[in-house]
């Protein structure tokens, strides 16, 4: 034993010691010996492997034989019994932790530079309530929206998903918490709880999968960044070769453009349809049309009136939102690893109809209000080499018409069309990490052109999430 140790130690020494010309013959000899030893061990291991295999085959065979046979009597069994296939699997763990849900954590943070103070950010002519997420966010270094995701099958019928957003200001919010059916069959899927609505293209995707730091202006102005609701969602996938999906939602209308009107009824509802397919090997596409209707009750908009005073208005009424969306992706022969391109665009059109309370704390004059406004964005993302992508986004809102009725003496419809242009470059060391820079020329405030720059990281750890199209 001691001798063997000594031998291996000297071998090690001989190998690590810089080879001198004089000792090279010895080293060569030693190498040969080691080679011989290695070959010897390899053949032994192979023999062992063979024995293991036969042992496994023997133990697997009876297990299969117990399985109920459904062979019809007419079928003659092959003369030589075919080798039975049994899954090769490790013994499952029987502890409770084996059922723990898949956990994923998205970590995001950014540095934001803006020329204008984002504290008084507003989109001219598009009033939103204070809970809507608009604008570039805080200046300087800040923790972006980190997200903790938990998901697992509940039983043979249901799956549960929860996404908790961790905000930079130490607050938490429930972004998603829903249960959904597993394989309801006939192309049906049912979801209940809090979810991101299936309207449009971008709405349902999580912020960490977006191609730009922020949501398009139209999404900010019309749905406060992203529309999520508490309710039920039913989807049906048609049994056709062309992708054809329909969905309907009924919910509380909790968030902007709704305002949680309360009561027994539903405060919001949506219907949508998606169609998609391939063109050859290299192209794929999807297009959709969505309709969202929500109720608002005394939804508070902070705006400036004609006298230049900041006032609170209360809107009570219905909002109807139409979204037309499309996305087209290209990758040479469908292989996106080296190069790929994605073109994505959406058009949103909103109409509001109801009553507006002008200056709820002061004058408090109420009259009918109607508006029809729209907006669009178009963006292209090009991966020009592995791990590197560049993207350009152009967008505009159309002020449309806004009829304030009698309140027109204090409030005026805007004649300004807010617009923005953004350029981004991102580096993706792996599918789990991304570092991005973005420059934005922001003309969303009339007369206050802003230049913005962002440096952002988005990383995910834990369970490997599969991405939607």
């Amino acid at each position, binding site marked *: 034993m001691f001798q063997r140790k000594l031998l291996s130690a000297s071998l090690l020494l001989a190998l690590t010691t810089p080879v001198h010309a004089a000792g090279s013959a010895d080293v060569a000899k030693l190498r040969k010996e080691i080679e011989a030893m290695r070959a010897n061990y390899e053949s032994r291991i192979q023999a062992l492997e063979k024995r293991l295999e036969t042992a496994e085959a023997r133990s697997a065979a009876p297990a299969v034989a117990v399985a109920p046979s459904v062979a019809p009597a007419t079928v003659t069994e092959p003369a030589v019994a075919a080798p039975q296939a049994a899954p090769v699997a490790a013994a499952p763990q029987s502890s409770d932790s084996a059922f723990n849900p898949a956990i994923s954590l998205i970590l995001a943070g950014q540095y934001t530079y803006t020329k204008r103070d984002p504290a008084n950010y507003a989109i001219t002519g598009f009033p939103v309530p204070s809970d809507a997420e608009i604008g570039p966010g805080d200046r300087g270094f800040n923790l972006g929206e980190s997200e903790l995701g938990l998901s697992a099958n509940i039983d043979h019928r249901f799956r549960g998903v929860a996404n908790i957003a961790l905000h930079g200001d130490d607050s938490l919010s429930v972004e998603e918490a829903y249960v959904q059916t597993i394989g309801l*069959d006939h192309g049906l899927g049912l979801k209940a709880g809090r979810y991101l609505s299936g309207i449009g293209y971008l709405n349902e995707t999580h912020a960490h999968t977006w191609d730009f730091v922020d949501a398009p202006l139209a999404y900010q102005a019309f749905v406060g960044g992203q529309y999520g609701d508490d309710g039920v969602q039913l989807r049906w996938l048609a049994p056709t070769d062309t992708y054809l999906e329909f969905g309907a939602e009924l919910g509380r209308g909790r968030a902007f453009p709704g305002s949680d009107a309360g009561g027994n009824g539903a405060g919001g509802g949506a219907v949508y349809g998606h169609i998609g397919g391939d063109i050859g090997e290299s192209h794929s596409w999807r297009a959709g049309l969505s309709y969202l209707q929500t109720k608002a009750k005394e939804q508070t908009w902070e705006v400036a009136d004609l006298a230049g005073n900041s006032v609170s208005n209360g809107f009570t009424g219905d909002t109807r939102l139409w979204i037309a969306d499309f996305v087209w992706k290209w990758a040479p022969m469908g*292989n996106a690893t080296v190069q790929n391109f994605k073109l994505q665009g959406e058009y949103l059109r909103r109409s509001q109809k109801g009553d507006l309370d002008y200056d709820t704390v002061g004058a408090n004059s109420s009259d009918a209000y109607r508006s029809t406004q729209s907006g669009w964005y178009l963006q292209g993302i090009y991966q020009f080499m592995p791990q590197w992508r560049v993207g350009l986004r152009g967008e505009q809102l159309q002020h449309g018409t806004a009829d304030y009725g009698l309140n027109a003496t204090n409030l005026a419809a805007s004649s300004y069309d807010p617009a923005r242009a953004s350029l981004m470059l991102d580096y993706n060391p792996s599918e789990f990490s991304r570092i991005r820079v973005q420059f934005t020329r922001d003309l969303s405030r009339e007369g206050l052109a802003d230049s913005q720059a962002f440096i952002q990281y988005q990383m995910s750890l834990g369970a490997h999430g599969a991405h939607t199209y």
Partner: protein
Amino acid sequence: MKKLFAATLLIAAVTPASAALKVLACEPEWGALVQELGGDKVDVTLATTALQDPHHVQAKPSLIARARNAELLACTGAGLEIGWLPVLIQQSGNAAIQPGKPGNFAASDFVQKLDVPTRVDRADGDVHPEGNPHIQTDPRNIAKVAVALAQRLEQIDPANRATYQQRAQDFAKRWDAALARWSAQAAPLRGTPILAQHKAWTYMENWLGLQYVDALEPKPGVEPTAAHLQEILTRQKDRPAKLIVYAAYQDARSADWLAERAKIPAVQLPFTVGGTPAAKDLFGLFDDTIARLLKGAGK
């Protein structure tokens, strides 16, 4: 009422009643195997081609539509399709192909997996806790999967049981003959040291007795870097590899760069059915793989 009945009849008549079993194969090798075993009793569509990286495929609308109608999903498993298959299955609204159902077939469940990591850490790259998923590079695995897949076809489509059994026997006979031929042809390759772009050839190395030296990717799933290639080039002096292998779907630039400097051939292998013009079916896949390896090794 009568009209409605007539309409139902019409629909039933238009829909082929004895339609072939609809199979969605995640990778071309399983598509080809289902075709071998099922003949005209199966209608196979492929989710990926040999020119696509099976790790990174988009859950695109056309695939969701195909998953919706599939009666059998024939995939590799072992985490290979984790980035896209769960979305397809979830969005398909198809009960038959849910995990655990007979319609969800994972080939890697039926072979002994290699490269099962003792340490699972993303710092080591895109590691698969279940083991190396590229099982199709060893034809002996194909034989094992064929047995299991034929049984699965019989289970799902008992009406055509006899056909599947007969075809499976026929395939096994032809495959055994081919295996013997390949083993004889590839004998000179035994012990040949190779470099691989991605650690995708473990099973083939094991089969042919090739000696794996290193991967061009610094970590599995991470694109080759100039620094890492330079490192391999330096190590060539001590542990010289005789050839570099890479799959048809991979970018050849790194392999070519290294091949030129190390003065060893870079050999493109089909990796799956359709990867090269000669790899038309499963037999062609291994005929061509061995032919290319022999040519690369100068044997």
